[in-house]
Each structure stands twice: as structure tokens, then as C-alpha cells.
């Protein structure tokens, strides 16, 4: 493994880390060659990274900030851990939220804390591909790892997403340009279709661009599914969806006659009119197509380890997100137990926020609750959430300063190779300390108080 291990030059202040993993987006590319300036503690070059990855590596330097703040005042990590545990134990309905930009190792501890304090746990899935998770529960899914797409897919459809700007290497490393086992000429052997409401920068990559009327994705998907199954459709399809019958017939023919088809779908489907109906229509269409050809569908996931979060929460509780432990066991009900809803209704009375910034992107009512209740935040940088937090931890960046495991958007688990040490602790270390403190407080509590009154 001589050419792949970490190398240091003679002076010892420049290090090369081969096969490092970029955790910026759900592509989780693990072929980064990082040049690290150990003196300045920064990555000066990220070979193979896309424009987003280069920015991710360049911007995560070590800033001079306290490791912990309580009420905005510098505190020791120990004091902050103690305060965090006290807040979580005293709350009637503490919630844990975020997790998608952290390692599986940290996620496992976060779910444990939520279980111990009988709170809620939810991830950013509830505001991105949560509807796809719900659709999965109703329909199932025909899917594949990205390597099958690289090796076999001669029909690649993107629907409601713009990977050229959100996941640049989705095209170049996995789905469009790479050569594969049965795709010897790369892009030449594939037909790429883009379906979206507008011509995005991804359109030039596609061979066929289909413009759907905004909010009409479900109708279009359902029509295609009807055509695939040989059903009659009404004549007003173009008026309804903006797509002509000829275009549809051509697409359906391609779908039924491909060697291996894939439909990648994005938040243009899951966060617009129809939501889980849209995702369900995609999954049902892909399933039906297997009567004619191997066909798979896959949500294009955003955060570096949102897929890991889905997996961890699922294996520990049985449900992928929006889980509530108030009764001492996991319950699942998106819309009731998802974070935006719990906050907007003002039900949560404490929040543990990990690696995300709800105070800057949640609805106003939810943010108002966050301002009112004690918040514990873990983030690598200062955020709106960390500014309003009662307890704010500065943590090391996963994949840059920490090892661990993340799951790519196709559920493939990938290891991390840290580039340089951070003076700050990891999410896993902080969360483990909070968990241990919570356990200690639980042991101390008088027997009569053992059962907290259930939250509303």
C-alpha cells in the first residue's frame, strides 16, 4: 500500500493523504489526494475534488474559538457537558436534531442519549428526502449501488435535481461519464435524460431535456407509469404537464428497451406539491419497469452522512427519522414527531442540535421556540443556532479532523481518513461525555422521580 498511505516530507510540515474521503455531499467520493500544511493546519490542495469539495477542504481550517460556551461565556468542556446533561435530564421533552454531517459513530451515541432522556430524535432527512422514506415504507424500492450504474446503466434519468451544481461528481465519477464493465465508451454508451421545471446547468449534460410544468411531476410520473403498463391516457396530458405525447412515447420506449435504467430523483420532487406521492410514483414506476428491463431508482441525497443517519436511526429504533421516545420506546409519526412540527407547536422544551443550523433555515415559528428553550449545539463553526444556544460546543470536522464511518447515498459505508488534528473534540467525544453524564444523573435520581411525566 506504499502509494496510498499518508506521507510526510522531510521537514515534516507537508503531508499527503491519499484516498481521503470528501464528506461535503452525498456522493462521498473517497479518492481525494489531500495536501496538508501541518504547521498552518490547513488543506492546501484537494486533488480530484469538485468545486464544492475544494471549498469544503479549503474552508475548514482551525479558527480561534472557545471549545465551549455557556450562555455565550467561555466555559470548560467539562462544565458545558455537565450543563448539557442537566438540561436534557430536566426537560420534559428534549429533542435531538441534525446528525447528517456527523459520523455514524457519533450518530449512534446521539440516538442513545435521546433514548435515555425519553426525548425525540430526528435528522435533516425530515426536511429533505423524508417523503422518500415514507414512500419507501408504502412501495418498497428497486435500487442499486452506484457501481452498478457505472458498470451497466445505459439510460440515466435525473428528475427534480441539478447535480451539475449540487453533486458535480455524480456525473463524472458514477453515473454519466465513467466507463464501466458493460459501458466501454462511457457517456457515448448512455442516454441521459433530465426532467425539471427549468433548464438548469445540468441540462447541457443531458441528451434529452424534458420540461415539466411546476407542480405537475406527479401527474407526469403517473402518466408514464400508465403508458409503461399499457393503459390508456387522456388527451390533455400535454396541457396538464407541459410534455407532449410524442416525447412521452419516446421516453417510455427508451425505458422499456434499455439494458439497465436508473432514475435519480431530487428534492424537486420531495419538497414540492405531492411530496411522498411524487417519491412513491417514482418508486412504483421503477418497480413496474422491471417487467421489461432491469430498472432502479435512487434518491440523490444531500448531506455527507444523511444516509448513515437514516441507517443508524433505523437499526436502533426501527424507523428512519421523526422518532419519539416519550413513552420509553420508539414511536414514528412524521408530521407529529418531526422537528419542524414539534418546534412550531412549541412542544419541545430543550434541543440538542448536532451539525446543522435550524435557526437559520427553519420556519419562523420553529425558530421562535428555539429562541425560548435551552439549546445545546455542536458545530464546527459559529452558526445562528450556536449563537442562540445555551451551551455551544466547537467540534472537529468529520473527515478532515476525525476518522469514522459515513454512508454514501447508495448506503455503501465508507471510512474516513483525517488530514490533520483539531484542537477541538469530536462530536462522538462530546456526545459520549454527555451520555455518560446523563447515565450518572439517572443513577442519582430518587426512585420516586424515576418516571418523568410524559410530554403532551
Amino acid at each position, binding site marked *: 500500500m506504499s502509494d496510498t498511505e499518508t506521507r510526510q516530507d522531510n521537514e515534516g510540515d507537508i503531508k499527503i493523504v491519499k484516498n481521503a474521503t470528501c464528506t461535503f455531499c452525498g456522493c462521498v467520493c473517497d479518492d481525494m489526494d489531500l495536501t496538508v500544511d501541518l504547521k498552518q493546519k490547513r488543506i492546501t490542495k484537494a486533488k480530484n475534488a469538485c468545486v464544492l469539495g475544494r471549498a469544503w477542504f479549503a474552508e475548514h481550517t482551525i479558527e480561534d474559538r472557545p471549545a465551549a460556551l455557556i450562555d455565550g461565556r467561555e466555559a470548560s468542556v467539562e462544565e458545558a457537558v455537565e450543563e448539557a446533561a442537566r438540561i436534557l435530564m430536566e426537560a420534559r421533552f428534549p429533542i435531538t436534531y441534525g446528525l447528517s454531517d456527523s459520523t455514524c459513530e457519533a450518530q449512534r451515541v446521539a440516538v442513545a442519549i435521546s433514548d435515555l432522556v425519553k426525548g425525540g430524535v430526528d435528522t435533516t432527512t425530515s426536511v429533505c428526502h423524508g417523503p422518500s422514506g415514507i414512500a419507501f415504507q408504502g412501495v418498497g424500492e428497486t435500487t442499486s*449501488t452506484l*457501481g452498478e450504474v457505472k458498470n451497466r446503466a445505459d439510460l440515466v434519468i435525473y428528475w427534480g435535481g441539478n447535480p451539475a451544481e449540487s453533486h458535480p461528481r455524480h456525473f463524472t465519477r458514477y453515473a454519466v461519464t465513467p466507463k464501466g464493465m458493460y459501458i466501454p465508451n462511457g457517456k457515448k454508451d448512455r442516454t441521459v435524460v433530465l426532467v425539471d421545471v427549468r433548464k438548469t446547468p445540468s441540462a447541457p449534460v443531458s441528451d434529452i431535456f424534458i420540461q415539466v410544468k411546476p407542480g405537475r411531476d406527479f401527474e407526469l410520473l403517473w402518466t408514464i407509469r400508465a403508458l409503461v403498463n399499457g393503459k390508456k391516457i387522456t388527451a390533455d396530458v400535454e396541457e396538464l404537464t407541459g410534455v407532449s405525447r410524442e416525447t412521452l412515447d419516446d421516453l417510455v420506449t427508451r425505458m422499456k428497451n434499455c439494458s439497465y435504467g436508473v432514475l435519480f430523483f431530487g428534492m424537486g420532487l420531495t419538497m414540492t406539491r405531492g411530496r411522498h406521492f411524487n417519491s412513491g410514483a417514482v418508486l412504483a414506476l421503477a418497480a413496474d419497469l422491471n417487467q421489461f428491463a*432491469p430498472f432502479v431508482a435512487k434518491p440523490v441525497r444531500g448531506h455527507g452522512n444523511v444516509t448513515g443517519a437514516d441507517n443508524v436511526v433505523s*437499526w436502533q429504533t426501527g424507523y428512519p427519522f421523526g422518532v419519539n*421516545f416519550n413513552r420509553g420506546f420508539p414511536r414514528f409519526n412524521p408530521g407529529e414527531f418531526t422537528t419542524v412540527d414539534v418546534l412550531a407547536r412549541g412542544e419541545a422544551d430543550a434541543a440538542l442540535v448536532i451539525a446543522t443550523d435550524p435557526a437559520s433555515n427553519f420556519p419562523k415559528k420553529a425558530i421562535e421556540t428555539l429562541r425560548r428553550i435551552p439549546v445545546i449545539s455542536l458545530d464546527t463553526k459559529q452558526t445562528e443556532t450556536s449563537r442562540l444556544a445555551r451551551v455551544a460546543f466547537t467540534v472537529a470536522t468529520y473527515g478532515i479532523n476525525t476518522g469514522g464511518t459515513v454512508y454514501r447515498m447508495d448506503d455503501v459505508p465508507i471510512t474516513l*481518513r483525517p488530514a490533520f488534528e483539531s484542537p477541538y473534540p469530536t462530536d462522538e467525544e462530546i456526545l459520549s461525555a454527555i451520555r455518560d453524564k446523563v447515565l450518572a444523573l439517572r443513577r442519582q435520581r430518587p426512585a420516586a422521580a424515576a418516571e418523568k411525566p410524559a410530554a403532551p
Partner: protein
Amino acid sequence: MPELRIINGRVYDPANDVDGEVATISIRDGRIVESVSDSARTIDAHGMVVMAGGVDIHCHIAGPKVNLARKLQPEDHRLDVQPGTDVMRSGTGGVVPSTFTTGYRYATMGYTTAMEAAVPPIFARHVLEELADTPVIDKGFYVLLGNNVFLYQLLKEGRKKDFRDAIAWWLNAVKGYTVKLVNPGSDELWKRRRENISDINQKVDHFDLTPLQVIRSFIEAVDELGFPHPPHIHCNNLGHSGNFDTTLQTMKAAEGRRVHIAHIQFHSYGGEAGTNPKSAAHQIIDYINANPNVTADVGQVMFGKAITMTADAPLAWMLRGFKKGKWVNADTECESGCGIIPFAYQEHVFTHALQWAIGLELFLLSEDPWRLVLSTDHPNGGSFLQYPRLIKLLMDSGFRREEIKRLNQKAVATTSLASIEREYTMREIAIITRAGPARALGLANKGHLGVGADADVTIYTEDADREKMFNSPRYVIKDGTVVVDNHEFKVSHDGRLLHIAPGYDDAIEDALRPFFDDYYTIRFDNYAIQDDFLHAHEVIPTRNGQAGEDKKD
């Protein structure tokens, strides 16, 4: 670690020829020892039965397909919850419980070891993470290599040594326990045109190999490598009428070498393809009885809810055709396929009743309990929580007769089940649930209570109702820790990963690396799993004398 002594219990320890005699079991430092000091805690097991902890040789409890099946059925979790306690994490049950609940439920049923039976190697990290979150039990997993494209290329090119080295490399890289073959040859047909293998002697497209050649090559290679457990084979044609002939050909391919056939009930069907199956239990069990190189687990179906989760993707597609309900398919690059279908076995359905009867025929006609292991292929034939009921069916012919009355009578009439009076003895149950699977797995310290064995002990209160008896052991001891104490789950415990570390020629990496560069989407150097990723683990030595390492924590 405190010492422990179990007295006055009737001990069933078939590996050491103890058959219900009252004996004392002494425990120190997690092992069975000759004797312990007077100050040791003493459990009076008067009126109780003492056995080694149960060993599940074939189940699906961790990893990507299991987690997909968990996510797929919220409706199955909400009616069966596991509240957290001071010593237990909360969770949910149903046919695919959450990880913590899986560990607790095995333990509270008296099982202390379980082997996850099908892992695509690229997903091994996920499996290891779930297993680390599966408390109490020791566990290992079988590595899906039977449709591996790289290995097929080596076979096609006749590179036998490289083939052997690559198998050993893979087992090392992912910390697996043995090789698993699932419907060998089918993946390429499935991924290219959604078809299946129908004949064990047909060529697999451009590989110029037949499934039978693949099977034979794996059996030979693993024999030479000396793995403690031979290739664990899910035969071609699972579930199809007339498949018993495929199963016989698979077993014969071993030519006297060790082989394990998984969930053999699903592979013991006569009749013509496309028509109703018939029982071919006699043909299958006669072959097993006569050939001591073969071990198998039954894969009994139990009535009620189940879920089919398998690397045999074409099978799941076929099952989808019946109800057109939820279906999961997952193709894994260069390595595997996967299919998942929620399922329920019903007494009145001809095929389901027949499957149930065939499984019991196999058990009751087996002449060597050491080589026919109890399993339901959890959760494919039913949950592992049905084992106690299955034990009752084997031990109590009166109960069995009553159960038969509830079934589709046409189905039962085509089998010999109603005419078999045999009842399993307590000794035989101890064999098919612990001593036999431990021996088949090559786990020298499991499945028995001799000096030096792992102190995994289950103590049941004797009860004429065998289901009740085996459902709720009074004490369960894991590594010397009393986990279940007088029916109460007192303290949790972290089990170990059991894996092998066979030697291989490093040169194989030079062949693997370019293949990974071309056809995988993760880097070769990020694929292998290092020891520091593992929770507590133990290397089980291979048969050709490669030393195992001591337990690590």
C-alpha cells in the same frame, strides 16, 4: 470476574456424553472450569434443565438488507415495542426487530450465539456497526462470494491458486466467518435481463461457467483453506417444484468434502416445474443421512408473519408476482443482489402447509441430529422467536397431530408426516440447537459445557409444555455473567464478533487493485476493514492449524 456454580440441575451436554444426569457446572473468568471456591455464587437448579447457550447457525439479523426490511415495515413495529430499562435500550420488535431488541430477545430465549448468513462484502462495515449494537450474543457473518464477478473471472481463466487467495483475502478484508453462496450464477442474468438460473448445469452468460462448477470450486478452495465452517450454500432454484434434484447435485459436488446446505426445506421439493410442489424430503434426507460430510439447517416455515429477505433477487421478484405488494430490490456492484418481500405463511394455503410439513419430515427422518440443525431462516420462514414452538412440534407428537388438523389437508396428505410418530428427546434438542451447530461451525468452545468451554449457559425450568419451557429460560449466563437471573433481565453484556483470519499470498492484491479501479466505486485501499474498527472480537483458528488469537476487547 466472580465465580459461579450451578448445582442440582439435570445437565444435557451431548458433546461430552452427559444426558440428563445431575451434575455441577463451575464457572470462572467466563469459562467452564473444574471447580470453583466455596465463596462462589451458587444457583440451585433443582427441577431445571441445564444446557449450553443456543447457537443459531443461520439467521438474518444485521446489515443493509435487514435494515431495509426494518424500514419497510413500520406497521410491524408499532404493535410490538421494547421499552427501555435501566439496563436495556428501548427498541421495536416484529419480524425484524431493532438491533438491541434482537440481542435481548435471543438472550432471553437462551440463545447466546447467532450467525448473520448473507453479507455483501462491500457492506461489511454496516454489518459490523449493527452487530456492535446487538447486545449479549456472540455473532459472526457469512460473506456473499458466490456471484462475485472478480472471482468468476479467475475461475474462467482457470487461476485456481489466485481464486483461493482471493477468497482468503476477502474473508480477511471484511472480517467474515465463511463463504456464502446464494443461487450461484443468477446475479449476472438478473442484472442483465431480470432472469434467473433454472439449470445448475447451464452456462452463466459470457463467464463460460456453470453454477455447479462454481459450487465445486468454492468447496474445494475452502476445504484447502481449512475454514472452520465450509461453504454455506443457498442452492439454485429455491422454492421451485422439482428443485430437490438441484439440491442433490449440489451436495454431490462436494465429493466427500464438507459442505453446509442452508434452509434445506426450501430446496426439498418434487413435482414438475410450474405445477404444485410435492415433498421430496425423503430423497434429500436419505442423502444427508448417508453422507457424513454434509450438514444442513432446516429453514422450517412457521405460520404467521415473516419477511423474505435474500440475496436471491430473482426469487423475490417471483414472489412479488403473487401479490404485487411492497418489493425491495438492491443490486450490489460486482458482488450481489438482494430482494425483500413481506410475507405471511397461512395454514390453509396448500404450498405453505406443504412447506411446513416438509420441514418437519426432514427433522423427523433425520438419523444424525448433529448434522441437521434447527432454523427458520429467520425471518424468512418465521421469526427466531418461533423456535420454542418448533421444539414443541418436534418433542410432542400429540401437539403435532393437533396442529396438522388445522392445515390444508390436501397438502399434508401428499407427505408422510402424519405417519411419523417420532418425538425428539431432550438430548436431541440440545444437539440441534447448540451442540450440532457449534460443531458444524467449528466453534470448539461453544455448544458444550466441558472444561474450557465459553461459559454460555441456559437453565430452563422443566415443563411438560416444551414451548413454554424453551420460551423463557430461568437463567441465561453469557461469558459467566448472569444476564437473565430468575427470569429477569438483570444486566446487559457485549458479545464478541467471531471471525477468521486465513493466510493468503499478498500478490493477489496486485490483481484485485486494477479490478477495483475499473469496476468498483470505492477505492481498493478503503475497502478492507482494520481491527480497530471492530468491537470485541475473537479470531477462530482455521483447520490447517493457523492459530487463533486471544480474545481482544
